[in-house]
């Protein structure tokens, strides 16, 4: 049963991720990312981390993606070139991706961590639930917790400053520079 749920979540996550990079319209990319995030939340639940799964759905799929949808609606569809400006870029990207995947997998699977091929140890019933995470956040990790709240505040202020700045007045076009041939003509004259 657990295997079935894992594969459903894994296939959903991979399909969502491929949809993000394959969709031409950025709006569909955002929707694919939402599907990907929901699948990941299922995987987090399988790993008995209920609070992270809930935060994933509420914060990520709920709040951050709404921000994306607003900006996509504001900016509109980008017109990406259908061809490669750099010849062979997709081929090289695919090759690099293949080798990166093989390399990461080999590095992890040959690391000799014995617990990797197990389910992990048996954990008590409250593992990863909001109470446990809250205790950890407010006792052991209080300073990172406060630092992240400060970081969020700075990011919000920074985004407002960046997006609210008035565009500068268009500068008058510079007088056209004399080209080489025009200069030569002036010299010969």
């Amino acid at each position, binding site marked *: 049963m*657990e295997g079935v749920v*894992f594969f459903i979540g894994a296939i959903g*996550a*991979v399909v969502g*991720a491929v949809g*993000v*990079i394959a969709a031409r319209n*950025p709006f569909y*990319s*955002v929707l694919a*990312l939402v599907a990907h*995030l929901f699948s990941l939340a299922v*995987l987090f639940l*399988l790993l*008995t*981390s209920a609070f*992270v799964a809930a*935060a994933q759905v509420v914060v*990520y799929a709920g709040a*951050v993606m709404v921000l*994306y949808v607003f*900006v996509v609606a*504001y*900016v509109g569809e*980008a017109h*990406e*070139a259908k061809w490669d*400006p750099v010849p062979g870029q997709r081929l090289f*990207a*695919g090759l690099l991706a293949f080798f*990166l*995947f093989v390399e*990461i*997998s080999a590095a*992890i*699977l040959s690391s000799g961590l014995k*617990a*990797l091929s*197990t*389910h*992990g*140890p*048996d954990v008590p019933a409250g593992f*990863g639930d909001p109470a*446990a*995470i809250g205790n*950890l*956040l407010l006792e052991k*990790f209080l300073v990172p917790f406060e630092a*992240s709240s400060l*970081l*969020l505040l700075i*990011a*919000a202020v*920074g*985004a407002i400053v*960046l*997006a609210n*700045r008035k*565009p500068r007045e268009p500068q008058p076009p510079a007088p056209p520079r004399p080209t080489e041939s025009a200069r030569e003509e002036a010299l010969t004259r």
Partner: protein
Amino acid sequence: MNISWYIVLSALLFTIGAVGILVRRSPMVILLCLELMLNAANLALVAFSREVGNAQGQIFALVVMVVAACEVVVGLGLIVAIFRRKLPLDVDDLRELRG
């Protein structure tokens, strides 16, 4: 399921995000691909936290979520600023850091 399945899945998702960053040209889609890579790292963190049987790795994942939210907010602010200056939203055209 063995923990290694989750780790290999996380490696696969990270790779897909990296391909997106290499191939796509719209800065918005590149931000989305960054999200994919951060989420893959999150999956690995939570899987390792389960492997050790210690919930502290999940705190790490939550902090990664906070950092990702900040990155999205600033990145989208930049995109809106670029759009309002009527500059092309294409990372090949935006290679000079001029205002």
